[in-house]
């Protein structure tokens, strides 16, 4: 699972609705792998509105990944920013581990890069 995906995920357990807690999910015991991917600057700049930046910033800090605190004014001209963003969201893969919800404590497991986001019947 890439970090871009993680940025879209939230805890969806019934009654877990505090937006400050259910997103982003907190990583636990993760194994990361960096896999090179071709960079497309037009894609990176145009897709920025989809990224929840505070969440990405919080998550990358937890994983010791370098990323600016805020998006620069002219991201399209900022080589360092674009490379850091590209590496963080598209080249960083979480292969094993889990994602915890700070709100309800639910643990979503990641196995071979695949998150299991299914819930038990009482959690729906």
């Amino acid at each position, binding site marked *: *699972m*890439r970090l*871009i*995906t993680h940025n*879209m*995920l*939230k*805890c*969806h357990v019934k009654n877990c609705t505090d937006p400050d807690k259910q*997103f982003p999910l907190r990583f636990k015991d993760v194994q990361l792998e960096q896999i090179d*991917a*071709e*960079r*497309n600057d*037009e*894609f*990176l*700049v*145009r*897709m920025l509105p*989809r990224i*929840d930046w505070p969440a990405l910033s919080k998550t990358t800090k937890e994983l010791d990944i370098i990323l600016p605190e805020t998006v620069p004014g002219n991201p399209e001209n900022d080589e360092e920013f674009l490379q850091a963003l590209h590496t963080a969201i*598209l080249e960083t893969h979480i292969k094993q581990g889990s994602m915890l919800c700070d709100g309800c404590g639910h643990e*979503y497991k990641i196995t*071979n*890069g*695949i*998150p*299991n*986001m*299914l*819930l038990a*019947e009482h959690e*729906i």
Partner: protein
Amino acid sequence: MKEQPLADTLQLSEADKEDQYVHQVYDEIATHFSDTRFKAWPVIERYLLELPVGSVGADIGCGNGKYLGVRATGDIFMMGTDRSKALVDICAHRGFECQVSDGLDLPYRDGAFDFAISIAVIHHFASPERRARAVAEVLRVVRSGGSVLVFAWALEQNGRRNFDPNTQDVLVPWVLPASKAQCPASRGGSPGEGESAQSKVFHRYYHLFRKSELQELFEQVGGCTVIENGYDRDNWYIIAQKI
């Protein structure tokens, strides 16, 4: 003799029906099913090719990931979810981004995506309420102004399948050749079957959509404007924009 669709007379709860006649079946037939799902349908291909660079989207019920690779890598980003772990494994093996998830309860934040597609999926939900909930989930995860494309099997079909025009809830056979079984010896078949060289027939539950039913469903769920609707390859389809 060719296996025919059956009218659904199952006395099961909706969740159980989906579990036994959708989820478990896809997990059993995943590889064989994937082998038969390779050609992108033109309407869907066109929709994906017309998306602007930078689009981020969800494929809900992505199956073997057929549509996850239509656009060149790096152009747009798509992530898939499917209820079948076996199918998600196939997606991952092909290098696509995917998770195991139920379409009734997507793990995404509201308005996360520019677009979402759900191709030949919502006909597997076993009640009008569940189908409405599935459509609501598809709409929930796209941003205001984003678009969704949904395909569902039609009652009115021109192809190989013969459906009784008075029966919308059906069990459709899938013949799994012995050579293509996921786990040849692990599933209990009928007594005495064991590791035979026989093919096995599975039945999948479908609610076939009659003309205008898909549009009515979207109008009922609301929060969207229908942009396009039509019939293609035995399916009704709709493109809608989230308000």
